[in-house]
């Protein structure tokens, strides 16, 4: 009977080996095609890499900053380092929802080599009930490492037309890009350069503030329940980890931050003993000049505005949260010196380009 069993095994072994030998190149080709077809975000829209750029970080961060573009465009992490020695990282993405901020924070807290000292959360995204476009979800999740948290995060924010299988196998989502492949799809097939500065999106162009549409009357004065639910989850997570949570509102003039929402956040912060810094109201104190410190007419700060906000916030955070000055740590300083060098070079290059052309070509002109 054993001999029969062995005979059977010997009979099927070549078939099994052949199947494995055929499957390996087949799967490899699929993986190659998937990598080729996924967007590289090296052109006008670089935010699609922000989630994955975090994984390149070798050192821990004292301050984790969460939020949408009001987080990653309005606080210069490099200024926080340069002026205060605060190591920080902005886990932000375009239109990042509160649920996404929660799960990115959860992931970051597991990955950080040392526990951070504080968490800063931008409250502007709380006004969103659901994701505006599927593309934003893809930018947050496509290069996020797989975990139970990623699964839950996708489930929490997926639009009706989205399918989990398309996140598991992104080739199902991006297969159609075969018509739109560019040189950068080959150039950045394996590795993509880091474009943000610890999550900060640098823009050195200037477009003064213009008029914005009149604020519409709110149908419901309260911030969406689902957003407040995730704010509460973020607060509870920070509490469980023993991390002080700070809420902040960027000095963006549009979209409108309604007084009703402001009141709600103030009340929430007061009830839970949370520090809330409203840089919109304190823009003057921060020295914001809306004729110079914004690159899109007042919606987002440029690097000049972001540095001012970093200086203003840094003073408060250092004093109230006792964030140590890490400039004396040689290992950290060496890494951040390189980052600062890149930051200064990028800023200088953009300043020259803007001075010469009046716009930055990479970001599609002065719009």
């Amino acid at each position: 009977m054993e001999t029969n069993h062995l005979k059977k095994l010997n009979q099927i072994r070549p078939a099994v080996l052949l199947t494995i030998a055929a499957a390996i190149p087949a799967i490899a080709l699929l993986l190659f095609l998937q990598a080729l077809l996924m967007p590289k975000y090296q052109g006008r829209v670089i935010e699609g890499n922000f989630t994955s750029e975090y994984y390149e970080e070798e050192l821990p961060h004292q301050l984790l900053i969460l939020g949408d573009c009001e987080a990653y465009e309005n606080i210069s992490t490099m200024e926080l380092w340069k002026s205060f020695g605060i190591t920080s990282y902005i886990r932000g993405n375009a239109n990042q929802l509160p649920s996404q901020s929660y799960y990115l924070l959860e992931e970051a807290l597991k990955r950080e080599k040392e526990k951070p000292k504080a968490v800063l959360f931008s409250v502007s995204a709380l006004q969103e009930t659901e994701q505006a476009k599927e593309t934003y979800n893809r930018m947050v999740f496509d290069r996020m490492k797989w975990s139970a948290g990623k699964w839950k995060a996708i489930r929490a924010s997926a639009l009706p037309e989205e399918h989990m299988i398309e996140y598991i196998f992104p080739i199902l989502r991006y297969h159609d890009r075969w018509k739109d492949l560019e040189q950068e799809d080959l150039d950045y097939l394996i590795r993509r350069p880091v474009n943000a500065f610890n999550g900060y999106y640098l823009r050195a162009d200037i477009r003064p503030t213009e008029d914005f549409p009149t604020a519409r009357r709110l149908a419901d004065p309260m911030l969406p329940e689902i957003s407040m639910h995730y704010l509460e989850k973020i607060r509870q997570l920070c509490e469980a980890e023993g991390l002080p949570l700070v809420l902040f509102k960027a000095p963006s003039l549009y979209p409108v931050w309604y007084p009703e929402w402001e009141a709600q956040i103030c009340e929430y912060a007061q009830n839970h003993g949370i520090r809330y810094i409203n840089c919109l109201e304190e823009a003057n104190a921060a020295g914001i000049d809306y004729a110079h410190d914004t690159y899109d007419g007042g919606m987002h700060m440029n690097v000049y505005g972001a540095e001012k906000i970093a200086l203003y916030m840094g003073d408060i955070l250092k004093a109230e949260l006792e964030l140590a000055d890490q400039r004396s740590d040689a290992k950290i300083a060496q890494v951040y010196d390189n980052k600062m060098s890149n930051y200064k070079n990028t800023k200088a290059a953009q300043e020259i380009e803007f001075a010469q052309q009046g716009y930055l070509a990479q970001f599609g002109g002065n719009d």
Partner: protein
Amino acid sequence: MQLLSYEFVAFTAAGLLLFYTVGKRFRVQWVILLLMSLAFYAGSGWKFLIFPISVSLFAWSGALLLDRLNEKALLIKQDKSTDKAVRQERTQQLKKRKRRVLVLVLLICFGILAVVKYTDFALSLLGKLINLCGVPGSFDPVGFLLPLGISYYTFQAMGYLIDVYRGSCKAERSFWKMLLFVMFFPQMVSGPISRYDQIQPELIGNRETGTRFPDREQLFCAGEKILMGLLKKLVIAERMSGPVMAVIGTGGNCSGTEAFLGMIGFTLWMYADFSGGIDIVLGTASLFGVRLPENFNYPFTAQSLADFWTKWHMTLMQWMRDYVFYPAATSKTIRKISKSAGKILPAGFSKRLPAYLASFVVWFITGIWHGASEKFLIWGMANFAVMTISQELTPLYRRFHGKFHLDGTKGWRIVCMVRTFLLFSVLELFECYPVRTVFSQVFRMIAEFDPAGIAGGIPAFLGMELPECILLAAAWTLVLASAYVHAKKDRIRAKLGERTILGSRCIYLYGLFLITLIMGRYGQGYEVAEFFYNQF
């Protein structure tokens, strides 16, 4: 649940797992299939389950009754102790009873179909009739929601009933097995229309061993069917539907070149869409060990329109032939009509009249089966008219071939293929436009016929960049090449070794998979249209 959805893939995968584990272990594979079919149908609205269940119930109980009457008739026939005249009279009475049962169940089931599908059409016709009499006004449509696949499973169930009536198959004792036959999920939405005795053994499975997991050859065939179906639908049909519908949408306000390309495009699109769906259905069914009948047999190789209809939507046309054409052609009523007509019409014609009248009935039913509107009725009648005229011209064709000796030559076969394709395409225009527009379109196509313009106008018609045009051409080439290889598979097998064939097949299937995966029109930014024949 759509056939082309991730949900369907997950549903089928989970079903296969249950089928070959729990189902096989406890010999309840057919129960798994039934539960899957009920769940699949309930996905379109659980309230609609009442329709297939009702049709199944009537067909099942009617068939059991007919079976009993058949057995009685057999006993009477075999009873030599009774007087022959008495036996004949009893047999006649039984025949009448059988006919009453058959007619009653047919009326009920086709009545259900007629009510949900044709009420609004009947009301609109009635309204037009009343207007013709000078009475203004119209009837508001009732707006019944058409239950999924009702045309297909009703015909399938009634075919089974007629088979039992004729004694060509025994009635199914189990209502649940009958329900499975009617509702078997892959074929519910767009056919094919199966025969009970053909698929019952595989559907219910082997009592001793159950349905075994497909072997390598069966897996290859199933995989090829499914992938080819996906290629036809997602790569070809979804690309062609936009340009084709754009031309149809002009309502005839387009150039002769556009009209011609639109006409050809519509035929090719319909073939890719319909046969693609059927391929997926056949492939999926075969994964569960059920071989459903083919619905297409290289229709564009047909030599005549009559030949074409033996190769396109075969199961519907076979159903019409077996359950409408033959009974009608041999019925007393039609024979009486022919006999009376023979007194005034030429002898030859009156001999062919039964077939023509039966054919008229077939094409009337086929027309309205396709849709509750005048255009489908006219389309059916147009097909009937062309085939009847063609039949009447047979002596002329014989004289022509007698003189020119073209019949049987390769060149003439190609001419006939092209002619049939164009004829079918022109007739399909009746489904798209009012009658007057069809004729004006055809005249325009002929008047403005410009081969160079047509060839040059293809990219503009398709509205695609060059890479996509090349892709479309390549996909069609792949479909044709696959058909050719299938036709010559025995010869190819004899020439190449088994190993070479195995390797080639693996590469071919993987290639099909990659092309469909990457170049299929699905996912974000696309809304894959339902299969065209789902609407029937």
